[in-house]
């Protein structure tokens, strides 16, 4: 990843929006701007990890002292200020910010911060520490920066989508209908095959999940609270299996889901899978630069309604992907974002059949100058995977 391109893009935006600087406190935003991918930072929000992008000059990163070696090794920001772990991490971080931002031009500097992700406590401390600063929310600016990917980001996300679909195919290749397979072994095969193709081994939500039996297939988040693992029940010939995995490399993500049918699909299974294909193809027809996300959603919804498809539309049609596996924009009723070239989206329409099965596939698409392009099809997914019946 060429972090310099991202920094230049960020600094141009900072100047264009007439900020003297911006500060990102959200771990995803801080990661994006610094290249410092620290998965645990999302889970240790009391420890402040912030990146300052000034309108001119070099970026600055603030983090706890014990993270410094990791930030230097993984990230690309050279100027790093650290504070000692304590019960007052926020105050210590703000104190460092005060000294750093004090170097900005006098008068009343305008400094942006991602208020949508900044703790109220930090906002108060900032206002007290730097009363002359005009603090303004720059959440939209950061979302905007992140939504449109540069060439390196596109290449990395495409590689991840390719290799993840390849890994799924590698894993399901081991399945034979009349031989014992469980949701757990299938999920673990998905992870192992992903690792074998070179993704990073990280934890948290980089999990594989497989739903194979009736009690699991009726929910999107089955097997609660064991979201990290799947059930040990054997697959039953004839069942529909839903497989899902999130993979990461250098802090960027793939978010994939596929369907397998254990045997020749029944007419009902063919119809249900056909609905997913219908929704995907409708989305692919409507996604193009200039269209609003909510507009694409509504167009697909109108077609789905007309065709009588049991789409669970409240969940949305899809989302962006980048340094987070789920990020703006959202192909949903509430998102007015206008689609632009080089946005990367994950299509995720969810249907629920009359029998209660919750089915979805996830496809990654790149918005192109004239429409969009599917990424990462190792095989053609107009039909589900159907393993061999026997050996």
């Amino acid at each position: 990843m060429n972090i310099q391109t991202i920094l230049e893009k960020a600094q141009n935006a900072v100047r264009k929006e007439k900020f003297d600087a911006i500060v990102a406190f959200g771990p995803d935003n801080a990661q994006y701007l610094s290249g410092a991918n620290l998965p645990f930072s999302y889970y240790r929000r009391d420890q402040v990890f912030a990146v300052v992008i000034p309108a001119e000059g070099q970026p600055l990163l603030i983090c706890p002292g014990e993270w410094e070696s990791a930030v230097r090794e993984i990230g690309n920001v050279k100027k790093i200020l650290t504070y000692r772990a304590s019960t007052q991490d926020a105050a210590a971080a703000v104190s460092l910010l005060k000294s750093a931002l004090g170097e900005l031009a006098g008068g009343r500097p305008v400094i942006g911060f991602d208020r949508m992700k900044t703790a109220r406590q930090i906002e108060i401390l900032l206002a007290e520490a730097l009363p002359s600063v005009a603090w303004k929310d720059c959440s939209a600016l950061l979302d905007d920066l992140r939504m449109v990917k540069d060439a390196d980001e596109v290449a990395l996300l495409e590689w991840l989508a390719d290799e993840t679909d390849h890994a799924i195919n590698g894993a399901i290749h081991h399945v034979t209908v009349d031989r014992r397979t469980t949701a757990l072994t299938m999920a673990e095969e998905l992870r192992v095959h992903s690792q074998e193709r070179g993704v990073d081994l990280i934890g948290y939500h980089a999990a594989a999940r497989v739903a194979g039996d009736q009690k699991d297939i009726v929910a999107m988040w089955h097997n609660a609270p064991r979201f990290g693992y799947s059930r040990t029940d054997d697959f039953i010939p004839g069942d529909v299996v839903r497989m899902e995995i999130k993979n990461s490399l250098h802090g960027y993500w793939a978010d994939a889901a596929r369907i397998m049918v254990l045997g020749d699909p029944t007419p009902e299974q063919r119809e249900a899978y056909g609905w997913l294909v219908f929704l995907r193809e409708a989305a692919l027809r409507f996604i193009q630069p200039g269209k609003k996300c909510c507009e694409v959603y509504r167009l697909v919804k109108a077609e789905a309604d007309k065709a009588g498809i049991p789409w669970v539309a409240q969940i949305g049609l899809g989302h962006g992907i980048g340094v987070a596996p789920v990020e703006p924009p959202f192909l949903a009723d509430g998102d007015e974002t206008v689609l632009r070239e080089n946005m990367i989206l994950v299509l995720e329409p969810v249907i629920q059949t009359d029998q209660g099965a919750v089915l979805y596939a996830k496809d990654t698409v790149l918005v192109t100058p004239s429409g969009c392009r599917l990424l990462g099809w190792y095989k053609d997914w107009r039909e589900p995977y159907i393993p061999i019946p026997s050996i």
Partner: protein
Amino acid sequence: MDSRFQVMLSENRCEAILALDPANFSYLSGITLPYPQQFPLLQAAILRTKNQAADVVICPLEWVHLTISQGWQGQTVPCSGQGSGYERLVDQIASAIKDRKFTPGRIGLDESILPATLVELLKNALPQITWIDLTQALTDLRMIKSEAEIALLEEACRQADRAYVSALNHMEASINDPLGFDIWEFTERIRVHMGEFCGSGFGNLLTLQGEDACLFYASPRRGVLQPGNLVRSESTNHHRGYWSSSARTFVTGQPSARDLAAYGDNIALKNVAHDALLPGKTCKSVYQAVVDAAEEKGIEFWADPGVGHGVGVSEREAPFLTPDDDSILCPGMVVVLAVYTYGPKRELICSKDTYVITENGSRLLSWYRNWDKLYVVIGDSARHG
């Protein structure tokens, strides 16, 4: 927790508490959510009331099922507002609170740690409510664990140590094999075994060998484990939402005298910290005991992260065994001792253990294996599997 929760509400003259921080949400609801920290914005809220019958969870439609399957007895209200910021979530919260007709309308909120935009929207949507910042009160409540919580934490520790042992058992016969044993595979086996021993999820996963182990965290490494290295492996995992934070250090091949001495130094300092874990003492006194012992024994230790922290519905939480934490250790607190010292190549050595503070001292929760001796990995099998 319930009686202490009710006391907290009464002491603050609140009729309910609204919590949106994911850890607070889990603590108050008993519901583990799927990776809520990693969504772009917070998505779920719990309103817990004096009258339990009025409790409500507000969450995305796709999470409704998991609240029920985890035994949530209150109401669950679906809220799908992707792309609309916090507005739809706040609308649903406001609607739920208005329905409950609180008088005079004092509601606690984990305000300090919530995003500023969200707090502002909430206050604007419900101007009649007097919001009381109960962030610290919730932190205090969470610090003292119930017996049930301690049992869950103990099981999480057991799962972690069993996972380390199993991963080592798979790997150790192959350490001198020309094909080697991949670092990722070793780390992955820790994760897999956490699941096999009924863990509900995993978090941080990291294995660093030799000079790489000088780092606290690093980009995931490729390649195979090499003989003659100190290796530090760190992980976090949870059992029904209650976390363990683990680190174990081992050596590949026969250890040098310096390896053994360095590891012995680490255990010596950890034992000092353990001896200092006494009810009535301050957290900072535990840290200071390690500082003093390190100076006295001439052991260099990495002081930046402190010497430990609490653990519960999050992998790292109060109290903190750091120089400024005045918290008094009390029975029911659960702390992870995380003392980092240096190996011969400046590798960071750590062997974390988790203790619950008791009336008289502390009890080890991570008891599955005694790691006081440096674990030595040797073996020549071609493919142990």
